[in-house]
């Protein structure tokens, strides 16, 4: 089933995405044909039990991995046809990734961590500093700019990671179980930040297995055994109809 009326504001467009690990009889079919469109400004939560393929999908969306088969267009780029160098540019400019385990570079200050994507983007030093401080301010950590990750709490580290994901003003913010390692207070902080980002018009895709986290999104996708089995609008926002197979 092809989407004839291609949404001009579509940020993500996936068609029959397959991901197979291994070869022959030992191969694992992690994704069995995912079709998905995400519109500009949408806030999508992907849910599913562990082993359902939601993390695999997230890694594909973040260009951390390449699909075995299918079409993946991110902001107009056909990701599977990009060279290594072009992929790095897409990761740098189009995607802000928030990991469950924060993945800050150890022994580097919060500010330096937030500056990293800008360094790879070739932003000049003064401008870089200004943008990084702005991003830290946005997550309420401007006063912790000189702290190293190990001096920060889990919630604070995740906020630094969000600042790092936002600093390049990416087309898409991806969050892979961003609250999975956090207590409820920190979870609330992080979700609050994501809410305000969504309100500001950012496109967000979040993976979670917690109902209360998913409920904050505008649209909830449920994945099972490598397929999207449910696509529901959680609020009044204009969720593009997902394709069910």
């Amino acid at each position: 089933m092809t989407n004839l009326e291609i949404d001009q504001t579509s940020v993500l467009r996936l068609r029959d995405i397959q991901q197979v690990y291994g070869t022959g009889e030992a191969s694992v079919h992690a994704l069995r044909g995912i079709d998905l469109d995400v519109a500009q400004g949408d806030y999508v939560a992907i849910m599913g039990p562990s082993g359902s393929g939601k993390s695999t999908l997230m890694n594909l969306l973040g260009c951390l991995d390449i699909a075995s088969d299918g079409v993946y267009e991110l902001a107009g780029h056909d990701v599977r046809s990009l060279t290594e160098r072009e992929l790095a540019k897409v990761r740098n400019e189009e995607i802000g990734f928030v990991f469950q385990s924060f993945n800050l570079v150890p022994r580097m200050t919060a500010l330096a961590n937030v500056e990293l994507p800008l360094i790879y983007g070739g932003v000049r030093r003064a401008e870089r500093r200004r943008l990084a401080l702005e991003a830290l301010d946005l997550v309420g950590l401007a006063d912790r700019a000189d702290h190293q990750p190990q001096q920060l709490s889990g919630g604070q580290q995740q906020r630094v990671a969000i600042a790092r994901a936002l600093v390049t003003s990416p087309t898409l913010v991806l969050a892979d179980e961003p609250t999975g390692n956090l207590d409820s207070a920190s979870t609330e902080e992080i979700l609050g930040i994501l809410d305000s980002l969504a309100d500001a018009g950012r496109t967000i895709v979040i993976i979670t297995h917690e109902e209360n986290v998913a409920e904050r999104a505008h649209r909830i996708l449920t994945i099972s055994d490598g397929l999207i089995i449910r696509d529901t609008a959680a609020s009044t926002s204009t969720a593009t109809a997902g394709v069910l197979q």
Partner: protein
Amino acid sequence: MSFFEILRSAMRGVTANKLRSILTLLGVTIGVGSVILLLAVGNGSAQTVQNAISNLGTNTLTVRASQQGGGGGATTASTAGSSVKTITTTVADQLDSAGLGHVKEVVPQVSTSLTVSSTSTSSTDVSVIGSTAEYFDVSTAKVASGAAFTAADVTTSAKVAVIGSELATTLYPTGSALGQTISVDGSSFTVVGILATQSSSGFTDPNTVVIAPITRIQKSYTGYGAVSTLTVLATSSDDVAAAQGEVTVMLNQLLGVTDTSDEPFTVTNQSSLLETAAASATSFTVLLGAVAAISLLVGGIGVTNVMLVTVTERTREIGIRKALGATRGAILGQFLTEAATLTLLGGVLGVIGAVIGTHWQINGTQPVILGYSIPLALGVSVAIGVFFGVYPAARAARMRPIQALRAI
């Protein structure tokens, strides 16, 4: 990502883990330093021998009584029926005045080992050499202060002596030994000269000898029998071979040797002797070089170890950086710069350490740095460090970000 940015992030990497950086640095420093220093010691000892050759001149011959011909008596039975004389001062005089075309001078020496004392201290087993005034022309011993004894002193068997610099300070630690009296096995000698300090290249330490007129030494200690050596000075270094032939023939004649296959003496060419010594010094350098190479290898393995652990440990970091948009080139650049900075810094410290180290004598040898050892040691250690710093990083940088992130 500009070169400057790569350099900055590499510097951050170097300073981020100080212990790891210091260990890497230390491995390279020790490896490079020991290679340069050990080669310098070997080279220094080889040069000492070479200096001894050039000091001696290449125009001297040494005549020694051979095993079967030597002995205390005036004559000895060498082969059945024939009576062969030994080399005495008389023979030396005859050889000197024989008018040999390529022989300039013949200097006889006797030597013995005696106790030498001043009023305050004494020194046992001192090498005492008796010779003529020409001794100072043909040997490496040079008078630094005072004067050598004269031909007249030799004629009159004067009780005068020239002593080595170390012996002088041993006997007279507070003042100059010059003009003082020393007692050699009970008889008093006046010190007329002190030798310049020499490097030790033979079996006896040239800085602790007593040199006195041969007539006096024979009269008081050794008797008038065979001399220990004759030093023959050829007219020039080109004439050494000719002089050697002339001396051999003339000595056979003077000593009444009939069977030339059984000469009671051997004539050795000083320079060939020292060439042998130089060759052994060279093999000493090679040996030290091998030891140095092993230490460089061990240092290199240390660096390799640290680098491999570092990169494996940092594969996750490489994954994070790739997820944030780092290109393979940016990551390689960072690790290359880190490894190069660490190993170069360590190498330069090693070179500085070695250069400082060569200012001290090691067992009497002044180390002399071999020019090629610096780029060699530096090059090898930097190459090892950079290869093992960059190769695993290159592998990690080739992975998809998710593979690198999942590592460990």
